[in-house]
């Protein structure tokens, strides 16, 4: 816990973000930081992120993960982030607990796929796809710390911009994350 993400003096902090089984709401919340984002841009460079459209990931100081782990591709992306990022953060309810996508865990996978691809409404070409390009689903959706080590957890659906700011401050300074009562929310 509490690894320090600060780069050598004079360099910017390299940040990568990814959305696994999530809704991009947490990414939106990052953009929601108003003028503070300018302050942030002063200090950070973005690597792979849906915000910048860079697809391959290089070594980074900080990785922010939104969303839980639902399929094989999520696992691969998450592992790549863990390999490349000095500090990895679970951002938002889905990354922290599995969240809304994990509500499918109460239904057997066979029924989930059946509903989506075989007997669901309005299907043109029913049948469970077998295309190797498509990532296979895990039998359950898991929070990301069940797959890789996570350095910081920031709950919230989505976490408020204030909470994200507290997180970034903690990460950049290498301290423990302290949230105020108003910042700590699970919903």
């Amino acid at each position, binding site marked *: 816990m509490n690894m320090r993400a600060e780069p050598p003096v004079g360099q910017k902090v390299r940040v990568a973000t990814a959305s696994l089984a999530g809704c991009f709401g947490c990414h939106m919340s990052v953009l929601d930081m108003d003028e503070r984002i300018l302050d942030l841009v002063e200090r950070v460079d973005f690597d792979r992120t849906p915000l910048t459209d860079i697809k391959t990931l290089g070594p980074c100081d900080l990785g922010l993960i939104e969303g839980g782990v639902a399929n*094989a591709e999520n696992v691969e992306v998450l592992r790549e982030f863990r390999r490349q990022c000095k500090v990895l953060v679970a951002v938002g309810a889905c990354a922290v607990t599995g969240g809304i996508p994990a509500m499918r865990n109460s239904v057997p*996978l066979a029924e989930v796929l059946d509903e989506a691809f075989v007997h669901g409404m309005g299907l043109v070409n029913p049948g*469970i796809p077998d295309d*190797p390009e498509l990532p*296979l689903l895990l039998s359950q959706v*898991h929070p990301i710390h*069940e797959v890789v080590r996570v350095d910081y957890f920031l709950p919230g659906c989505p976490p408020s911009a204030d909470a994200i700011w507290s997180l970034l401050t903690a990460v950049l300074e290498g301290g423990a994350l302290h949230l105020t009562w108003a910042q700590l929310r699970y919903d």
Partner: protein
Amino acid sequence: MSGASGLAAEHGGAHADPARIERVLRGSLAALGRGPDTVLQHLIAQQQVFSHVPDAAIGRLVEELGVTRAQILAAVDFYAFLHLTPRGRFDILVSDNITDRMLGNAALMTQLCDALGVRAGEPRADGRVSLDYTSCTGMCDQGPAALVNGLALTRLDAARIREIAALVEADTPLAHWPKRFFAVSNNVHRSGLLLGDLETREAGLAALFARGGPAVLAEVERAGLRGRGGAGFTTALKWRFCREAPSENGHADKVIVCNADEGEPGTFKDRVLLSAYADLVFEGMTLAAGVVGAKTGFLYLRGEYRYLLDHLEAVLARRRAQGLLGTGIGAGEGPGGGFDFDIHIHLGAGAYICGEESALIESLEGKRGITRKRPPFPVTEGYLDRPTVVNNVETFLGAARIAEHGGYWFRSEGTDRSAGSKILSVSGDCARPGIYEVPFGTPVADVLADCGAEDTQSVQVSGAAGVTLTPDEFHRLLAFEDLPTAGSFMVFDHSRDLLDMVRNFAGFFAHESCGFCTPCRVGGRLVLDLVDKVAAGAAGRHDLDELRDIAQVMRRASHCGLGHTAANHVLNTLDKFPHIYRDRLRMSDYTPSFDLDAALAEARALAHRDDAEAHLAADA
């Protein structure tokens, strides 16, 4: 009492037609009455005859006893030996203590499953037989052991399993099975103060009659007798508290309970005491009744010892005939005579927690065995809120001899803080497993030498909840001030993998947690999952930190002694035998909580894929 709890003539999967259910119910109602506290005993009676508790019986019990259906379902679901759906007509439960495992119970289970064409946990389609594992049945010195329709089977081996399979296939009633299958030996290898004298003279009671309760209490106090069930509370103090506890109708409604739940894995000495020294145990209970002024007594007998029921009922009947139980006990024989007291046997139904005294009392009241909060303590508010003394079998036996011979006699052995002797149940890797009575203060090494243990790697003192010792500690003393023990003494030689022990204990505690409090209910399961992960070679360093942390949370925050001690074995082995964990760790410090590739198996099958992309490597 025997109508309900006695060995029913018909048992094991009788057809549950309404008339028959009614007949069994009438029988148990006649024997036990209609108090709400009798519900568990009625359920046990139904289970014994029909191999389950039929729904119609539940409806009738709701009418007769005024309990709710939910309360009955809750109890059936709590006790391992009660079921809502039929078990096989022959319901065989293989004892699964670590000592049974060391003696090869798993192979025997497989053999029996194969021979009978049945899977563990699922009754055979024809309803003839069901097989499953159960927690330690208290036959560790003569295992591998099992229960068939509640009766103890000992010394199982491949030949015996073949015979059992044939008897089941031939539908041979248990009464016609070879008697030797059910033979239980006492295996007393060393006798001391208590076991050396088998004779019953009722001299303790004579002393009570002649000298009165206070004099006997003073003698027990002088002896420094401490409870033999584990906690080591001073017996005289407990009796005094109960004696002085106010009760609504004077002394009349106080209660004496003998704790014969003996559920701690590796303990079996109470079984021997009840087999060979039952009179002394009942004498001790009667003494306690005379001292505290109790009219009602219970022997809470673990379900696994049901085979002792007929014998114990016979002893009680004889004692009643002798005027040693009933009304006016010792009338005219002195100031301490002339009181009323009787003893009823209540059966347990497969729940280790019911050995904890307040859970035991809940169970006596017919409920799930959930530990009560303390205070109040049983001595002031116990069975049906009456002042109640709960003591271990061995404690009552000791009290009887102390009343006879005096406190100084007892003090002649043992240490200052641990007077007298301790009866040990020795099992595991040794030449002579069985019962050893040693003076308190005896070093572990002496017991090992005595029982013929060689090349010993570890001893587990005081059961799964106890302490794991390394050879460096074998000089330590069995005594409350060093190694307190309820008597379980399990020996492991160097051929053993102690992680097998840890897995066995973790499984035991997860299964036996009553579920009342969070740390034990959830923590016990988390510990089991982590230990299994270690055993599967899937754990990283982080998991060991988590194990330690969860174990501490259980120890510090649980509601009762079960949770407080349930992870001792984990903490002990992490400290003293770290290699059993370390040798199996993955390279990476942090590993997934689940098997990633296995988690894709279902999707692979549904999508008919097996390409490289359809798999995930265990390591990143």
